[in-house]
């Protein structure tokens, strides 16, 4: 019922993939300067790259989160494309409504343009925690829309609180370390992207990307946009405030997350996973943890526990690359 009519599919032009950074730089900016995000904000960078990749025939939805509050304070917006706030709970539902509206209006001759690419830009809370119900429903209903989860591993707008994506051992203001709870956060995070893929077997495209690999990320956004149906991009968007980093360490931290196997860059297409980062060996996770103040309280045994979790994750994903000894 929600698939595009043939003529709309033909009218919609696919976004070409980018061969290199020079092509990416040439693209126009649709997330422009003048927003109240942190100096060195990872999510802001992920927003900018996504908007750059998306181009003008786009609508962005911003569920409540840091990228709503920081970007729109006050009564102004930095997006050159249509943007709308949704509740943190229901971005997936609102995007479904917009997609359905365009399906109906174009079919009935009430809208003369082509079908827009509709993006949700939800934080990890708005995706994997409070927003998971609507996110899942949007993917299940296969609306022609793109769900981007900018994962900064915490509720950062409200002052750094734990979310379902906050890693084990991380300090947040809701998981402070103390003599009784030396490791701070005791729970291991959800695996949002793979979980969504497993839950929605009809999903055609999903990807995990990092702001530290910008062209790869932009191409993943474009591939997701070119899919006729629901697609998911999970982007690792490092939060300097929440993770206890200096502003200029954000891209380094993103790189280390990938190089230690903490965050995997992958694509899921036609039922197959492909992994983009294939080193000779992964670095020990300690290299990633030690630059972040949120892990400063951890003891060697906690590092070991995190390393085991990462090793298990690699094994579960069928990645047979060794990890350097700690």
């Amino acid at each position, binding site marked *: 019922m929600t698939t595009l009519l043939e003529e709309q599919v033909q009218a919609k032009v696919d976004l070409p993939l980018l061969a290199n*950074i*020079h092509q*990416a*730089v040439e693209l*126009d*900016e*649709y*997330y*422009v*300067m*003048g*927003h*109240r*995000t*942190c*100096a*060195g*904000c*990872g999510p*802001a*960078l992920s927003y*900018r*790259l996504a908007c750059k990749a998306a181009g*003008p025939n786009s609508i962005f939805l911003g569920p409540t989160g840091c990228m709503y509050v920081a970007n729109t*304070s*006050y*009564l*102004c*917006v*930095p*997006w*050159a*494309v*249509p*943007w709308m706030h949704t509740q943190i709970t229901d971005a997936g539902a609102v995007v479904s409504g917009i997609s359905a509206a365009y399906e109906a209006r174009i079919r009935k001759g009430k809208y003369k343009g082509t079908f827009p690419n509709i993006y949700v830009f939800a934080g990890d809370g708005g995706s994997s925690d409070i927003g998971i119900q609507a996110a899942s429903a949007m993917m299940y209903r296969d609306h022609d829309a793109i769900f981007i989860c900018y994962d900064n591993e915490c509720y950062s707008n409200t002052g750094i609180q734990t979310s379902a994506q906050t890693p084990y051992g991380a300090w947040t203001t809701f998981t402070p370390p103390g003599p009784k709870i030396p490791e701070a956060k005791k729970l291991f995070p959800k695996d949002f992207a793979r979980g969504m893929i497993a839950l929605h077997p009809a999903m055609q495209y999903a990807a995990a990307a990092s702001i530290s690999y*910008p*062209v790869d990320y932009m191409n993943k956004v474009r591939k997701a946009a070119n899919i006729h149906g629901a697609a998911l991009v999970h982007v690792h968007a490092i939060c300097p405030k929440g993770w206890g980093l*200096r*502003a*200029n*360490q*954000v*891209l*380094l931290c993103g790189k280390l997350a990938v190089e230690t196997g903490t965050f995997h860059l992958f694509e899921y297409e036609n039922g197959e996973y492909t992994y983009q980062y294939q080193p000779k060996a992964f670095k020990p996770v300690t290299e990633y943890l030690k630059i972040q103040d949120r892990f400063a309280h951890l003891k060697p045994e906690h590092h070991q526990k995190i390393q085991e979790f990462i090793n298990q994750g690699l094994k579960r994903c069928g990645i047979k690359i060794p990890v350097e000894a700690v």
Partner: protein
Amino acid sequence: MKTRFKKYTVEIPEEMAIPFAGIVESPKPNGEQPMMLTGGWRIYRPVIDSEKCVMCKSCVLACPDATVLLVDGGNKIGFNLDYCKGCGLCTWVCPVNAIDRVPELDFEDGVPFQDALFLLPHVEALYAD
């Protein structure tokens, strides 16, 4: 209509009016949002050594604020100092160390000067002498 219902409506002074449903205009592509100037945040200014620069453009893509620009017909790197927050990511990402970080106070110019961060008409009145 019965005019008596007017007594239940609120007359909003023109200078306090807000757009319909709080819906605002979008900025132009490649433009800026002048209601949120951020150049004043900067403690260290990025300064590029064009001799060293190899125009790999990594810094252009690394800026969360889109303030690293191609200037001089696309042949050089420049910065929009009205908005650069001085995060230093361009410096970090540069493979040839062509971007230096210099204390902002060493320069005379380059930062838009504002009386206040956010100033609404009815709040401004409270600051008046």
